[in-house]
């Protein structure tokens, strides 16, 4: 008798110590796992059936979607993928029924692209390159539409996805329920949404997540290279150093960082996503494509190289990770530099930097983590003390 509630061990594993969601991509072996040791037999059959169906598809030659355990799964919400501002207004002003009816009326009209659209297209481009080099590999980006929109709106969403020829094969339309459980079920590596509450919930559950905002003037972005920029503290790293700045000032901070130069910082919420990107990058390096690698990562930090930079670089090294460019601004505004880099997405924990980036046309995503969140101030001071004690 089938037990529908039994989950293979790996899927429910969520190490509560590190703020990071693990799946096969972050295992040190670096080899693709054909199937987990506890894999459910019927799920393997599920997989074989889909493979067969896709390979024999009479209609268009769409590439086969990867198994979630092998892929880097990016979950995007409908409002970040498409511009749904008008429709949202109808929902807020006239209620659910009218909103659904409105969407049904416009069902055949595709939405216009939203703020995560360029990022998604860049991911698809990387996939195309990966498929060329490794035709049988499943270590690819898998883009999932994760929305708590009503299923009736789904038709219009899928019509829009088809209109722009986006490779999104999987979706969850939760009809109002929280998407967090589904994020875990899909082994999500990064979640992007306009709803900061959901993003916070995801981060608390150990899933890398960021809140996106509408961006009016966008810079012309590369369509051959995916560019991702990260802030350091409280994004890639924990907020332990930021706490020192806020509590004891810059001088203490510099002294502290020099003293603990060789002690790696703790992980931040987006460390695992950088790790996943690094894994894919190494696949290009292995084929002699370091210079023309279609993925480029940047660290854009307010730290200064001289006094606080070493610890950051040593921490990355200790994790076995690298960034292509590490930019230390020593407190200078990030906006102009980002304008030069033109990333498809920039992650930062402080709204001040997000706004600075947006003013100069960069698509920025806020990571609601750490002491930088004013309204969390009371709560985080407590937990950070606990964290410090543990490390000692």
């Amino acid at each position, binding site marked *: 008798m089938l037990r529908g509630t039994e989950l293979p061990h790996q*899927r429910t594993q969520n190490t509560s110590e590190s703020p990071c969601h693990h799946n096969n991509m972050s295992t040190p072996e670096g080899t693709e796992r054909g199937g987990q040791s506890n894999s459910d037999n019927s799920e393997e059959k599920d997989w074989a059936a889909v493979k067969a169906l896709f390979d024999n598809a009479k209609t268009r030659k769409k590439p086969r979607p990867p198994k979630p355990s092998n892929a880097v799964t990016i979950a995007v919400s409908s409002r970040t993928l498409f511009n749904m501002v008008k429709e949202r207004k109808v929902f807020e002003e006239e209620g659910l029924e009218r909103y659904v009816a409105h969407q049904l009326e416009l069902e055949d009209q595709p939405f216009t692209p939203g703020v995560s659209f360029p990022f998604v297209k860049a991911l698809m481009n990387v996939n195309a390159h990966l498929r060329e080099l490794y035709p049988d590999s499943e270590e690819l980006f898998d883009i999932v539409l994760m929305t708590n929109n009503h299923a009736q709106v789904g038709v219009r969403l899928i019509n829009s996805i088809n209109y722009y020829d986006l490779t999104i094969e999987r979706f969850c339309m939760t009809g109002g329920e929280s998407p967090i459980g589904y994020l875990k079920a899909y082994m999500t590596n990064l979640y992007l949404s306009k709803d900061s509450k959901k993003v916070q919930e995801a981060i608390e559950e150990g899933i890398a997540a960021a809140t996106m905002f509408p961006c009016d003037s966008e810079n012309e972005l590369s369509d051959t290279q995916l560019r991702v920029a990260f802030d350091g503290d409280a994004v890639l790293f924990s907020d332990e150093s930021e706490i020192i700045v806020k509590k004891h000032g810059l001088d203490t901070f510099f002294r502290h960082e020099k003293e603990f130069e060789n002690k790696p910082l703790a992980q931040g919420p987006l460390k695992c996503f950088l790790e996943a990107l690094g894994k894919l990058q190494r696949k290009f390096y292995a084929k002699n494509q370091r210079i023309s690698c279609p993925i480029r990562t940047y660290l854009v930090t307010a730290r200064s190289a001289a006094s606080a930079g070493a610890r950051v670089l040593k921490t990355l090294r200790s994790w076995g990770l690298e960034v292509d460019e590490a930019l230390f601004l020593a407190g200078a505004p990030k906006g102009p530099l980002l304008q030069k880099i033109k990333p498809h997405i920039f992650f930062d924990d402080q709204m001040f930097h997000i706004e600075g980036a947006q003013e100069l046309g960069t698509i920025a995503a806020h990571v609601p983590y750490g002491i930088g969140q004013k309204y969390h101030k009371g709560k985080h001071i407590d937990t950070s003390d606990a964290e410090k004690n543990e490390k000692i």
Partner: protein
Amino acid sequence: MEDEKNRTGPLMIALQYNDLFDLDSISASTNTEDALPKGRAVAFVKAVQTVNERLVEQNKSESLLFEVILIAKECSEEIKMKIVESVKYYGLEIGKFFFFKKEELINTLQSNKVKLFLSTDRDDVCEALHTGIPAALLYEQSDDHVLSQLKVIFSGDVIGFSEDSLDSLSDFGFSETQIETLKAAKICMKEFAVLIGQMKRRFGQENSPLCICVLTAWGSTNVCVSALKTLREWGLDVDEAFCLAGAPCSPILAVIKPHIIWDGGLHNMRDLSAHS
């Protein structure tokens, strides 16, 4: 009044007693005076009762209500009494009890105009579908989770695939009989969907006691869209939709926590085709 009742309702659902009560956990030390231990179907019956309560709230003379009947193998009078008592003990509204010999299962279901036969046993579901009885899987809820909603999943693969596509499944090792069963299941699903759709329309979109989901395990997003549109044609509004494109089902199902899964016996068939 009598005519109206015959035309629309009730929507009869049949359960097996070994799904309603957890007979495996009865041991020699169990006190025979106590009621039988609860099984996986109890949460389902409670959810159904909630729907009925809400329907009657809207309309006191509502005839399109759920009616749950219990079927059990022929057994001693003592056990029969035990079953009836336990049902009362848990406050379950069971309309009728049927005790029969194993071979008579199909006849019993057919002669009682059962609109849906629910079981946690995939083989039973498949067998019933085979003989044209609408049957679906009763999902095993992991905890004593009492939902204020009845959640039903329809397979987007079965509803969304056209006749031609269903026929082409023979290329993947599905036998003629299996394909015919899928087609028959689709017809049963339609009947059930129409009735549930009528029930659902008694309520608004928000706070409805009925939650309808479409889960497409294999098919592409277009298959899912086709399923959504088909269900709309049949008069049923869908609340949640999932397209898995081959990703494992069980983690997703564990989050959805449905009561009923209408997949036309798809999962069982895959196993069969592997053996043939």
